[in-house]
């Protein structure tokens, strides 16, 4: 299983490295969305239009969520169109390894995107400095990314066989990810507070961790059935 996952992961990363399809699009989308937020929110934060607290956390997470929807949409497209599924099913390996590999690669994409998108957010929109909250913010980002990666892989595998694929992904993924956004934005809001970062609320973080654990197990259990015939 470990070898299979590693091989599949290498394939995913090599594919993304050569085609450069998902990650640049997600980054561009995120940065453009910040610009749109800047103009559509008007001069909430005064002349420079900076955000803090709840509003900053909300803007950050909505942008990251929609950017990740783009990545989820593309996740299985190459396998579906070029017969990657058939090749995988012919190979005598555990099917769940595909879920693990896809989820890890989606997680890697999300981390790459955030590597650029979060500093861009700090530069363009955020009022308080990003540095003071960085360690806690990384923790929240990681917990939320795991949840998004697991649900995203499951939803992408569900939607790839339907006719209206591009429509089904947001329809299925957005309600499922509401707890992630809720937990993540509530947990980040005190970090972006105006007068220095407040303490990280532990219960929201534990909600995120619980969500990750539960849906990781569920996805692990049901993924087999999405890959037959």
């Amino acid at each position, binding site marked *: 299983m470990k070898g299979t996952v590693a091989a599949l992961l290498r394939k995913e990363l090599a594919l993304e490295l050569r085609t450069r399809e998902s990650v640049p699009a997600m980054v561009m989308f995120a940065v453009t969305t910040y610009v749109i937020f800047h103009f559509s929110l008007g001069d909430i934060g005064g002349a420079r239009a900076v955000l803090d607290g709840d509003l900053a956390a909300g803007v950050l997470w909505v942008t990251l969520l929609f950017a990740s929807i783009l990545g989820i949409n593309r996740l299985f497209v190459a396998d579906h169109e070029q017969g990657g599924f058939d090749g995988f099913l012919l190979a005598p390996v555990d099917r769940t390894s595909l879920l693990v590999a896809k989820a890890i690669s989606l997680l890697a994409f999300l981390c790459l995107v955030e590597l650029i998108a979060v500093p861009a957010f700090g530069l363009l929109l955020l009022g308080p400095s990003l540095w003071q909250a960085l360690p806690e913010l990384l923790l929240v980002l990681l917990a939320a990314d795991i949840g998004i990666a697991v649900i995203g892989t*499951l939803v992408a595998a*569900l939607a790839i*066989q*339907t*006719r*209206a694929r591009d429509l*089904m992904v947001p*329809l*299925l993924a957005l*309600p*499922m990810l*509401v*707890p992630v956004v*809720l937990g993540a934005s509530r947990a980040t809001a005190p970090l972006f507070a105006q007068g220095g970062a407040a303490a990280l609320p532990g*219960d*929201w973080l534990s*909600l995120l961790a*619980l*969500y990750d654990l*539960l*849906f990781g197990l*569920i*996805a692990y259990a*049901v993924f087999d*059935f*999405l890959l*037959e*015939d």
Partner: protein
Amino acid sequence: MLVAAFTLVLTYAPVDADQGVIQKIFYVHVPMAIVALVGFMAGGVMALMYLRTRDRRWDMRSYVTIHLSIVLAVGVLITGSIWARASWGHWFVWDEPMLVVFLIVFLLYATYQPLRFSIEDPDKQARYASVFAITAGAFVPLCFGAIRMAEATTQTHPQTATMTTSSPASVSLVFLVSLIGMALLFITLCKYEMASKNVTANVRRLRRRLAGDDDQVSATGRSAAPQL
């Protein structure tokens, strides 16, 4: 069974009407919400049974349960907003986690039918719908557990558990009766829909045999409902 349950709900509920007329909607709204949520979870369990046994009837049961739960959920949202309008003055209150979570769950399940509809192969349709039903069925208790945990401090939406224990015996009796009545109504409706689906399938099979297998199944067209 249906008639008995329904008359109980209708005749018993007005007994406790002295707390204002609008309060009576409680006996419809709360049982409906509980039954709908339990129905969603039951649909998930049935979908699990389908994946284990590969018996088409389990998929049919899961579909029927979720389908009727969606209908009930619409009822919950309508009665809830009527009640909210009367007692809080607004149709929908966004700072109420209970309302928001219910709306999210409803939106999630509203995608169940389009999902089924957009998969053509019946086998694949059943499998994918089952995977969705299991995942969403696990989502329901998690969500409601999360709001219980997070928003235990300030809440205007009444909690069912505290309400039934603190209220007088007559109220909880009527509430229990209407809850059982609603559950029986739900089960009966499920049975009716199952029966009607079975009859339709049988009629189609017989008609096909009469026609001498000339025209194929294509006459039925694509549908979101599973076919036996």
